[in-house]
């Protein structure tokens, strides 16, 4: 990981930029992802479990010949595990040339969010992490949580490497 990437994180951590966001839902909350990071959205397919990884790493899928890992975002965010439904989707992301999938309850829409409707993430207090969030997008009377997906997925990188080693 180079300095350049770290800088990118920092600037993103500061505040989300205006632009198009793909929104999806976990439980009743809606989240937003920069659309440029999204490679495609696919329905849930059979997942092969991988041993010795954190539970939120569900396993790997065959995306037209590529073997890509999928992460259950519910588990990642410490939300309650639910059965997958017809609406459950895998959003395939391309982040820093890493291809990964995230499992979400359902995909909502693509939104144009203007800079003036983006607010910095609230400070939850000293013990609360908010570095996954790069802003809150206000659309009408609703609020979309804009995610720093790089941070979320790269954290997994180190997590996955560490877990088997400490086992």
């Amino acid at each position, binding site marked *: 990981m180079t300095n350049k990437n770290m800088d990118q994180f920092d600037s993103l951590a500061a505040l989300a930029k205006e632009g198009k966001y793909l929104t999806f839902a976990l439980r009743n909350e809606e989240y937003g992802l920069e659309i440029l990071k999204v490679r495609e959205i696919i329905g849930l397919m*059979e997942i*092969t*479990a*991988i*041993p*010795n*990884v954190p539970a939120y790493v569900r*396993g*790997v*899928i*065959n995306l*037209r*010949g*590529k*073997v*890509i*890992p999928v992460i259950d975002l519910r588990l990642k965010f410490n939300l309650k595990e639910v059965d997958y439904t017809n609406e459950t989707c895998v959003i395939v992301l391309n982040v820093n040339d*890493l*291809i*990964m999938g995230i499992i979400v309850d359902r995909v909502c829409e693509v939104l144009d969010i203007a800079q003036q409707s983006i607010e910095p993430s609230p400070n939850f207090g000293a013990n609360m992490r908010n570095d996954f969030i790069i802003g809150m997008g206000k659309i009408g009377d609703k609020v979309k949580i804009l995610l720093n997906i790089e941070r979320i*997925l*790269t954290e*997994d*990188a180190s997590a*996955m*490497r560490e877990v*088997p*080693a400490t*086992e």
Partner: protein
Amino acid sequence: MEIHNKEVRFLTGKLDKLAEESIIVDLSSETEIIDFEGKFNAFIEDALSNNIKDAAEAARLVLEFLKIAKDILPEKMEEIVFCGINQLYNILKNKTSNLQSPLEIEKNKTELNKILGRGEKGKNYLLPFQLEELPGFIVDADVRIAEIEDNIQYLEKDFNNEENIKSLYRHFHTLAGETSFLGILNFSRLTQKAGDILNKIKNKEIGLNGQLISLLLDITRVLRELLKALADSVDTGLGYDVSAIVQKTADFLVQPDADSFLDPRANSGSQETPNSDIKMEFTPRIPQPDLSDGGELIAEFISESQEHLYSAEEALMILENQGDNDEAINKIFRAFHSIKGIALFLGLEDIKTLTHETETLIELARKVSIKTNPELCEAFFLSIDSLRKLLQLLQEQAKNNGVLKSEYYNIFAVLSRIKSVADDLKNNCLKKTQEKKIGEILLENDTITESELKDSLEKQRESGDTKKIGEILVETKAVTQTQLSRALEEQQTKSIVDETVKISVRKLDDIINNIGELVIVSGQVCQSLNVLNLNSKDIKLAKNTNDLDKIIRNIQNISMTLRFIPVRPLFHKMQRLIRDLSAKTEKQMHVVITGEETEIDRNIIELISDPLTHMVRNSFDHGIEEKEVRVSRGKPAFGRIELIAYHKSGNLIIEVKDDGQGLNKEKILQKARMLGLLKETDALDDKNIYNMIFHPGFSTAEKVTDISGRGVGMDVAKRNIDKLRGKIEINSKPGEGTIFIIKLPLTLGIIDATVVSIGRDNYIIPLFSVVEFVQPRFKNITSISEKKEVIKIHGELFPVIHLDNCSNISYKKLKLEEQIGCLVDSDYGRACILIDAIVGQQQVVIKRLEGNLGYLKGISGATILSDGKVGLILDIDGIISLAHKKNAR
């Protein structure tokens, strides 16, 4: 050129008439057009007779376009005529005001091209009959350009050789004529200009010098490229932009004495005659490669040069082993010459200088036997190695955006070495020239005697013409002979080139990946059809799906071999290594190569090179005895190392065989005990004794030489081969020799594997890890502690590994007796892994895990199973080490 106004006025009058004609002429009538063309031709004649050449040329151009327009775009003819006549008026007007405009005609041409809708770059297209003639022309032109190159080379040595100049002029002139007939206008433009220059040289209007030679070489290079482009695709060939070089040539024609028009870097070296002073000044010049195109040119240059060097090396070894061979010398010459040409173009000064000097040496080498001249041979090898080094540095530079971090390589030592060898040789040659005059055949057969040599020397003295010895050298070089053989060979290589294409590895991998996918998907489709019972209802459908399946599998098989290349380069590298070692030591060696055409995945070739090097060194240093020892043992004085490659049951086998002393079992055992690898009581069979030499730090050599003896090589070799999932075996007979047998998979991407089911998922166990499958019985299993068990198989005890214990895979079957034990071999010893069931055995394509999953312990990769699901490949070594760690706690 003095232009008299009178003549211009006369011609303007003629043009007026022509312009009138052009208005009257009915361009839809065939006869009228022919009539008009005749009048146009008359105008050209008039212009020529009045010595207004550019007007004549412009008019010819207009006529040419008119003809093209007639054939392809009749409705544009009027416009062409109108525009063309206007252009002619302009030219004549400029003449009266004494304005010189060499670019005028080019500009006119672009304009005319625009009318025909050919775009700015003179995009062109050919008429059907021209297209038909094209392939023949390309072959002819190739030979012609080769001859042109030859001529230029000889001219470089002797600026006054009129034969060469005439021959060059003829070639350019013919090429110009042919191309203008075929409508390859860019080619024709350039060759015309080159012909003009040669004409001037021929008429002694300008003197030949180094700059002119480099210009001619430049032209030839561009012509070659253009020809290649034409061969690739007519469109790119016609669109090939030659304006830069044409401009350069045109500049030369206008002011032949100016020095500044050429890149000063490009011509400094080529003016040197081969007789230049040996004690030359030399300062290394770190290249400043032009990377503005993303380093593409440089990258191509590097890869091409490496190929050239490789073929030169190959030819050199033929020369060294088999004696004189014109073909081989030509090959070496061509290799260096090609590198020089491009290096010159790219401004790579050092490479150019080195290749140039080497070329000089090759020229001299033609006259002596390389086989009997080890110094000469050494010099060539030295040059090849130095060039490789320079290329390597260049590559590094290209990778780092032109910054060179490593120390630059000074070729001065190499250069002076080559020069001194060349000098020695030159002195030698002076003596030998006469021999050739008496009878070349005698010399070639080595039947010439000392007295004959003396005679010849006397004769030379009699003739007394010592001044012209340089010329004699050139003349006796059997120019026509080499030209002929070169031309013939050019044709041969041409046919080989036509059959291969260069393809980027990335594209190839893409194709192979996609074909893998195709196989899986088609398998699924067929299966669905079976499930729906459609196949049994519709026989035609069943047949079609069957055929489809067969074809797709065929494609897959072909695709797998796309990446395969012969082991030839690898073997030649070894041959070179042995040669170098021989030169360094007193040991003399015959190298025998068998099966060099056997093919294997190119990735493996790259990875096997190191281990093979170690093995060959080992055979050389430890296997083959000293000469005296050999003779005293009744063996031939020359040692013999054989390299053999062949395919056997889906694997590539490489054997390294020597006829040396063989491995000394006693010594190995002794050493192994000393190192504590063995107990006194351990009894080993031969194979295991031999395998001891693969232990790190194991060496029975009494002293460490610079070739081997540290006990590192074989360890590295073994580990590298293991990494490739290969096996290595040693056979040895005391006093007779040793054979290393390396068994390698044909490709890295595919493995033979057993698919097993554990819990919900199917897993892959590589077949090379599996020893056997057993049905566990309680009576065979002994518990040491909870979940720590050993199983007795064929009287031996092995640890039992529960995957649910050392990783979070859970079993479907809970009773041990229902499960199956898989005895596996690993770096950590054998163990018995429990699985639920065996699914089957198949070849699987290894896939990289995307995302961040590269480092999973216990999993070495993944594959797509026939149902489209991902199957994980178990990393047996990793699992067993995990289990051991768990148990240790």
